[in-house]
Structure formats: structure tokens, C-alpha cells
């Protein structure tokens, strides 16, 4: 016999209890809402989280700073690159590292691509749950084009681990401009189509206008951030409030809503995507074309290793395709080289003694990245709010404690209040417009 939940204990005897989730399709598989009903009216609600608890924070305490990057990918899995960025910039703040200009531009490019795909996924799911399946298909189509750009450069579609401590893993793919232009064009078209389908659609308006409204004071006291907070009219955006990377040099607006209801959350996200596309175009203009690698003959890695047994090789070594973009010549523009915080170039590792030693020192247990003792907090603007990392270091190569400030944890906390007194049908659009992501909610 399981213990009674709060709502089971306190419910009036004449009201009906209804369980939604966790396997309800609109609950994204990882949230359970228990409702106390009078007819269709919700008298009380209780949201139960924790169905996707994967022990992220505890696992990180047993991983080195370099290795735990892959776990950050899987927090907000719709925009993994922003999570990487949040963690990596926290580490850089702790280590006191300055990242090269080109890497910063690439990071902005990747963040904005992720932000657009995050908003697209959120609105697609929300629209589908409200019955607008066409919108879902359109938005997924646009997302594929955005992921093509990411895949060209990073080699993976979602869990890329591309943004590394000190810089980025590889230079942009030679053809990235073409794919980016296509992605921006297709996304603009989809946004236009979706606006036409939803903005004045009376079914959609009926389920979103005035539903799930929250006041500014409540939103602030719950700790809301991101598009949901901006939908109430507060123009708080980490990119503007405490600019990181090169956001202070780019021009973009922070769209705000008025009433803080579902429709405002939808429209803020739509307008924000437009701003992100603007940012993408600006950044694409700022990133210079990669200088071509120096001409001259290249030799195979095996040949280079054989030669290096006798004497130091001066020739350029052809890298395997999965190291493309991480050539030694490119590194000064991609990673901070003043401290040993990035993977040493493979050319050195395989052909010189010092390179091999630095490789081992980087990866060996107890060595590697060892920030000074202390604690640090840093946050970036994620897909649905302020993604913050709080890391306590005890001077070893593993964090003593790592805490994630997940934006949707605070959003979901307000869910019970937003649906109380409404109808059952209002649960789905309200919950959908919040963009709950299980990975970062339950960690």
C-alpha cells in the first residue's frame, strides 16, 4: 500500500480524483498531476515530479571536469549546446580563462541555433497537444534544417558535447554558410506559416487567451525566468542583464508579453525566434572565413609516427575525419592555449614526447583540469530561462559539488496555482506552454 498523497488525504469526500500522467501523452512522460475535480472544474491539483531523476548532480561528483560535459548535454536535451555553454563558462570563470574571439562567435551561433530549435520544439508540442498537428509537422521540418547546420559542424544531431572548456571542439564545417542560409530561410517560412495558422485561430485563442495567466509578482516570487517571465511583461534576459560572450555587441530586442497567459508565452517565443534568426545573421557576418590550412604535402599518421621514432617530423599530418577542424594550426582561434585546459593537438601527441606527456597529464585521473579551491556561479540564457551552474571545487580534478539551476523547475512549481479553478482542458495548453523538459527538471 503506497502512502496517501496530499490530495488524497485532503480531498472532499464528494469530489472526484483524477490522475494525469506520467504516461499521459501531454505530460511528456515524466510528470504526474493529480486533480481533485468537481465535474470538469479543478478544485485542487498536485504535481509530482522526479520520474526522470537520473542522478545528474551526484554522478558529476564522480566525474572529472572534462568527462562530465556529456551529462550536461542531456539536461535540457532540446538545446544541448546552451547547457554545454553554461557549464563551460562556469568553469572558465573559475579558471580565469579568456576564450578566443572566433570561438566566442561560434558559441553565439550555436546557442542561437539551439534556442530556435528549443522554442520550435516547445511550440510544436504545445500546438500538437491542442490538436494542431500541421504546426507540429511544420516546426519539426524547420528544426531538421537547423540541426543540419549543427550536424555539419559538430558531427552529431543533438548530444554534441561541442562546446568545450576553453573553446570549442572543432572549427566550423567549410560549407556552414550554405546550410545556415537554408536553415534561416526555411525557419522564417515556417514561422510565417505557423503565425498564419495559429495567431487568429479561434480554437487556439480560446484555449490560450486568458488561460494559465500569472501576475508579474507571482512569476517573480516563483523564480520564473526566460520566455515565461517575459510573457508577463518583465524584460529580464540574461543576455541583456549581464551580457556574456559578445552579446553586448549584437543588436537584438527582448520581446515581452502583457498578461502572462498561454497566448503570451506562445507569442513571446515566436517573436524571440525571429530575434534569434536576426542574431544568427549578424554572427554569420562577423565570423571570418577560416584561413585555409597551409599548403604543402601531408603525410599519413602512421608514416608520421614511424618517422617520429627517429627524428622530429616537421610535415603536416593528415588527421582522421573525426578530428576534422581540430588541426593544430586552427587551435589558436578555437581554444584558449594559455593554460592546459583543452585536449592537446593530436599531431603533437603522436609524434613528440612532450605532446604525449601533456596528453597523459590531461586525461590521467587526479591530473587534468584542476581549478583552484572555491565556488562559483554563472548563468546563461537557456531555451526556457536562466540556466545556472554552481560548482564547488576542492582543488581536485572532480567537482566537490555541482548544482544546476534549472529554469523549468521553477516554472513547474507554479503549475498547481495556474490550473486551480480552471477546467481539465486547460491543463494541457498551460503545461505545454511552460516547456517542461524532464532532463533538467528532475536532473
Amino acid at each position: 500500500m503506497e502512502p496517501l498523497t496530499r490530495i488524497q488525504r485532503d480531498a472532499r469526500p464528494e469530489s472526484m480524483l483524477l490522475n494525469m500522467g506520467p504516461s499521459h501523452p501531454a505530460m511528456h512522460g515524466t510528470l504526474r498531476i493529480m486533480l481533485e475535480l468537481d465535474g470538469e472544474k479543478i478544485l485542487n491539483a498536485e504535481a509530482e515530479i522526479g520520474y526522470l531523476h537520473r542522478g545528474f548532480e551526484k554522478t558529476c561528483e564522480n566525474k572529472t571536469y572534462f568527462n562530465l560535459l556529456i551529462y550536461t548535454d542531456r539536461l535540457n536535451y532540446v538545446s544541448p549546446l546552451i547547457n554545454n555553454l553554461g557549464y563551460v563558462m562556469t568553469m572558465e570563470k573559475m579558471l580565469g580563462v579568456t576564450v578566443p574571439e572566433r570561438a566566442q562567435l561560434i558559441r553565439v551561433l550555436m546557442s542561437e541555433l539551439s534556442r530556435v530549435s528549443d522554442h520550435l520544439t516547445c511550440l510544436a508540442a504545445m500546438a500538437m497537444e491542442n490538436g494542431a498537428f500541421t504546426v507540429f509537422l511544420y516546426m519539426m521540418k524547420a528544426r531538421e534544417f537547423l540541426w543540419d547546420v549543427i550536424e555539419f559542424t559538430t558531427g552529431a544531431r543533438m548530444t554534441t558535447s561541442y562546446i568545450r572548456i576553453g573553446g570549442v571542439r572543432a572549427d566550423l564545417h567549410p560549407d556552414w554558410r550554405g546550410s545556415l542560409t537554408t536553415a534561416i530561410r526555411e525557419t522564417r517560412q515556417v514561422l510565417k506559416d505557423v503565425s498564419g495558422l495559429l495567431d487568429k485561430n479561434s480554437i487556439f485563442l480560446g484555449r490560450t487567451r486568458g488561460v494559465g495567466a500569472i501576475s508579474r509578482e507571482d512569476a517573480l516570487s516563483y523564480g520564473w525566468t526566460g520566455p515565461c517571465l517575459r510573457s508577463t511583461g518583465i524584460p529580464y534576459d540574461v543576455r541583456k542583464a549581464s551580457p556574456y560572450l559578445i552579446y553586448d555587441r549584437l543588436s537584438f530586442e527582448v520581446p515581452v508579453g502583457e498578461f502572462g497567459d498561454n497566448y503570451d508565452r506562445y507569442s513571446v517565443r515566436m517573436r524571440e525566434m525571429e530575434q534569434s534568426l536576426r542574431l544568427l545573421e549578424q554572427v554569420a557576418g562577423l565570423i571570418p572565413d577560416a584561413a585555409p590550412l597551409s599548403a604543402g604535402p601531408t603525410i599519413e599518421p602512421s608514416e608520421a609516427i614511424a618517422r617520429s621514432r627517429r627524428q622530429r617530423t616537421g610535415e603536416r599530418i593528415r588527421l582522421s575525419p573525426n578530428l576534422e577542424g581540430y588541426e593544430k594550426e586552427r587551435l589558436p582561434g578555437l581554444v584558449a592555449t594559455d593554460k592546459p585546459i583543452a585536449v592537446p593537438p593530436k599531431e603533437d601527441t603522436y609524434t613528440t614526447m612532450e605532446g604525449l606527456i601533456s596528453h597523459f597529464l590531461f586525461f590521467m585521473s587526479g591530473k587534468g583540469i584542476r581549478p583552484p579551491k572555491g565556488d562559483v556561479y554563472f548563468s546563461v540564457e537557456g531555451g526556457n530561462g536562466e540556466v545556472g551552474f554552481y560548482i564547488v571545487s576542492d582543488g581536485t580534478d572532480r567537482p566537490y559539488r555541482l548544482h544546476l539551476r534549472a529554469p523549468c523547475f521553477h516554472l513547474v512549481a507554479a503549475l498547481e496555482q495556474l490550473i486551480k479553478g480552471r477546467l481539465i482542458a486547460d491543463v494541457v495548453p498551460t503545461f505545454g506552454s511552460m516547456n517542461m523538459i524532464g532532463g533538467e527538471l528532475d536532473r
Partner: protein
Amino acid sequence: MSGLDFLTTRLETAIGWGRKFSLFHYPFITACCGMEYMSAACAHFDIDRFGAGLTRFSPRQADLLLVVGTISHKLAPVLKTVYDQMLEPKWVIAFGACTVSGGIYQNYAVVQGIDRIIPVDIYIPGCPPRPEMVLDGLLKLQDKIQHQKQDWRWARKT
């Protein structure tokens, strides 16, 4: 007896053919792999080309359970209930490394492979698997369904 054998083999082929192209699937989506499931189900990769396009969000109407994403110990009883609610014949695809083996989450919170709870027909590894791999897994399942032996109630058991 040989006549009945002939009849049942022919029938088996026909039933297998019918079943493999009309899979109604129930996506049990919990985590990251759900994004790739969405991609596989939508226009670009289009799972509908292989006859598995109809998503049923009720286990009672589904033939194929797609377990997509990490299953934690807290969620395990829910998954078991969903599986038990499905009607025979039913198949299960473990979608992604977490469902196959627990993946990178080897810790106190995560079930180390859903085959500890329910039987699995096809394992699709990858963190998350690409949509092409999902389609490949689906084709392998169709192959399995085609060659599955039926349990004929009237046939004499030896």
C-alpha cells in the same frame, strides 16, 4: 496432417505480412531520445513509409511499445503497467542506450536496461540513435514479425 501444416504455414505468412505493415505504436517517451523519435516520426524521415505511422496514445490500442528514453526506478512500475495493458500480440523496441543498458547513467536512479522489467524484441543503441537507425530497427522488427510462428490453438501440440 500435412495438409494442415501447409495451410498454417501459408496463413502464417499472410498474417505476418499483414501485421508487420500495420504496426500501431505507443511511444513511451521520457527523455532525450524523444527528440529523435519526433524527427523519425515527422516529415524528414517519415516512419509512416514503413507502415508504423499511426501513433496510439493508449496502450490498449497499440501493438508496438516504443520505450524511448531513460527509465528510472520511479518510472519502472508505470512502464510495466503500460506493457501489461497492451493486448497480444505485442512487441517492444528499446530505443536508445538508456533503455538498452542504462547507458551513461550507471547509478542508483536508473534501471540498467528495460529488459529487467519487460521482454524486448529489438534493441536500438545510440545516445540518442539517429532516425535512420530507428528505421533500421523497425525493419528488423518487421522481419521478425514476418517469420514469427503462430500459436495455433487447434494444432496438436507434440
